[in-house]
């Protein structure tokens, strides 16, 4: 039972939640000291994808716009931070922040046509934007062309970060605060305006929501998230080239959002984590126990052994379709249903 506005906008509204929240922080701190190196690398990957997913969910799940061009913003963040560090010799934190703002600016620009477009028209406009960014980066020598760019060494104040474990603390801290920020944003006036626009933009406008401002803001915020994530990804991979940021990546990001659940921050976290695990595991599908050798036999007999990693694409496609058809709320929907099931257990 909520009695006033301030209770409604509280970050965590019960003691139980506080307990698990603190446990989560503790687990995140302890994790890299216990887990083997590969899992730390995977956790970095997951944290970056969680940032993008949360950002994209603000746009798709909360504001009801569609974007098939988020790989473009991701690329702007990655290239922006690397180039700002290489050319202008800015410190890392400043460079990544600036790159994310550049990305947000592009998001704002893309938000302008979005004011008049919807459905398939918006989809193709954003898709074209994403493709155009990759093409420009691939053709322009400043961006290293098709050969790509090496990332400079990563220094924060005077600490040099070079192992996955050291990166972990940077990436997970940033991801943690960005997720918190998103959760808080959705509880404010801005967040409510986004949701109103999603439910009906005309009704929202008659209620006094400034559509121009809030739609472009949603694009800008979402692009900002993608920009930060892109910058971090550049340093995680250590090397970036245009083919990393292709059209398929944009669909993957959308898939993370769908799998997690539209319009739910917690869902986005689950979606980002689960799908990244699946993505990295399927990349080496032939090394899985039992299943791997069966697939190899099957490929040799019927398919082509070199194309085996592409099975990830098939499985992702199937997951998207099945979820959309049978569980439109995604993993978050499963979570809610399990919770209700246990709460009311014998019934």
């Amino acid at each position, binding site marked *: 039972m909520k009695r006033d506005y301030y209770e409604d906008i509280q970050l965590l509204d019960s003691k139980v939640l506080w307990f698990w929240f603190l446990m989560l922080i503790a687990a995140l701190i302890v994790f890299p000291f216990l887990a083997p190196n590969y899992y730390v690398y995977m956790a970095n990957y997951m944290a970056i994808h969680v940032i993008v997913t949360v950002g994209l969910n603000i746009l*798709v799940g909360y504001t*009801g716009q*569609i974007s098939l061009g988020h790989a473009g913003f991701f690329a702007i963040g990655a290239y922006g931070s690397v180039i700002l560090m290489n050319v202008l010799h800015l410190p890392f934190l400043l460079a990544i922040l600036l790159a994310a703002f550049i990305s947000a600016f592009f998001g704002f620009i893309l938000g*302008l*046509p979005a004011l*008049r*477009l*919807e*459905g*398939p*028209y918006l*989809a*193709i*406009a954003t*898709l*074209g*934007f994403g*493709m*155009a960014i990759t*093409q*420009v980066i691939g*053709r322009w020598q400043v961006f290293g062309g098709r050969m790509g760019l090496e990332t400079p060494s990563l220094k924060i104040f005077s600490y040099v970060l070079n192992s996955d474990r050291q990166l972990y603390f940077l990436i997970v801290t940033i991801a943690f605060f960005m997720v918190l920020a998103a959760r808080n944003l959705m509880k404010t006036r801005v967040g409510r305006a986004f949701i109103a626009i999603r439910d*009906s933009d*005309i*009704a929202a406008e008659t209620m006094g929501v400034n559509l121009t401002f809030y739609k472009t803001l949603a694009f800008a915020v979402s692009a900002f998230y993608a920009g930060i994530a892109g910058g971090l990804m550049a340093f995680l991979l250590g090397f970036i080239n245009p083919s990393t940021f292709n*059209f*398929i990546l944009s*669909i993957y990001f*959308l898939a993370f959002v*769908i799998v997690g659940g*539209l319009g739910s921050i917690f869902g986005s976290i689950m979606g980002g984590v689960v799908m990244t695990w699946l993505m990295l595991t399927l990349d080496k599908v032939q090394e899985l126990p039992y299943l791997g050798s069966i697939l190899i036999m099957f*490929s040799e007999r*019927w*398919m*082509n052994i*070199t*194309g*085996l990693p*592409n*099975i*990830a*694409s*098939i*499985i*992702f*496609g*199937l997951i*998207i*379709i099945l979820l*959309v*058809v049978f569980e*439109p709320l995604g993993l978050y929907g499963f979570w809610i249903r399990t919770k209700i099931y246990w709460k009311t257990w014998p019934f």
Partner: protein
Amino acid sequence: MFFQLLVSGFSFGSLYALVALAMVIIYKTSEVPNFGQGEMAMLSTFVAYTLLVTHNNSFVLSFVGSLFFAAILGVFLEFVFLRRAKDPNILSLILITLGFQMILYGLASWKWGAEQRDLPFPVSDFDVINLGPAVLSYLNIATLLITLVLMLILFLFFKYTKVGIAMKATQQNAMAARINGIRTNRILSITWAMSSVIGAVAGILLAPIATLDPNLMLEPLLKGFSAAVLGGMTTLVGAALGGYILGIIENLFGGYVSLEFKSIVAFGIIVLVLCFKPSGLFAKHYVRKV
């Protein structure tokens, strides 16, 4: 130079027009922008390749076989996945077709790998005829002719056959069509089959110019989609015209301004046009009511 660019732009434009037509036919009946269109065409082209090269059939047989495959694929996807979605909104429809795209892309790359192949086409790309100041290859001419014939068939189909008219009725008002005894579900399946076949023709015509690999249709799909949006997603004629316009503008841009950024110009045009005419150039703009 100008005339040459115009003519070859026309030839590319006709491929975009085919893809655009395929998209619009589906979009009009089921309101789905089919992002899987390109991969459906790509897979059908690979089937043609397999029939032709691996199994040594004649070209006509492989061509017909691949079109047959395309029709079945279209019906299959519509029946198995799309029809299962309960009152879907536009976002979930887009996502389902994106799912098709990923599944088909994955299947094709699993089966045929990233290796680049050549589809032997009976009409040569190198023998040319001179047409005033311009040079046209036989393949260009074949592309233009096949496209025009296909469009003519489509026009006659929608104008004079019973199925075509039923299709138009379904597009205008599915409920009313159903009340009047049209099996709208079957019409939907036929639509998907038709669209898939048109896409497959575009894929087979494109394969000798480009190289046959799983990425074959990625760009043409986006261009064709752009063309459809440019002309208006709700008019067949508009979509076809949009394809030609896009092909010509793109080629002129490539010739006079910059060859490197040729493929970006399409998206620039789309965004610009959509800013001024949100429903495309040739379609009537409906303002949505609350």
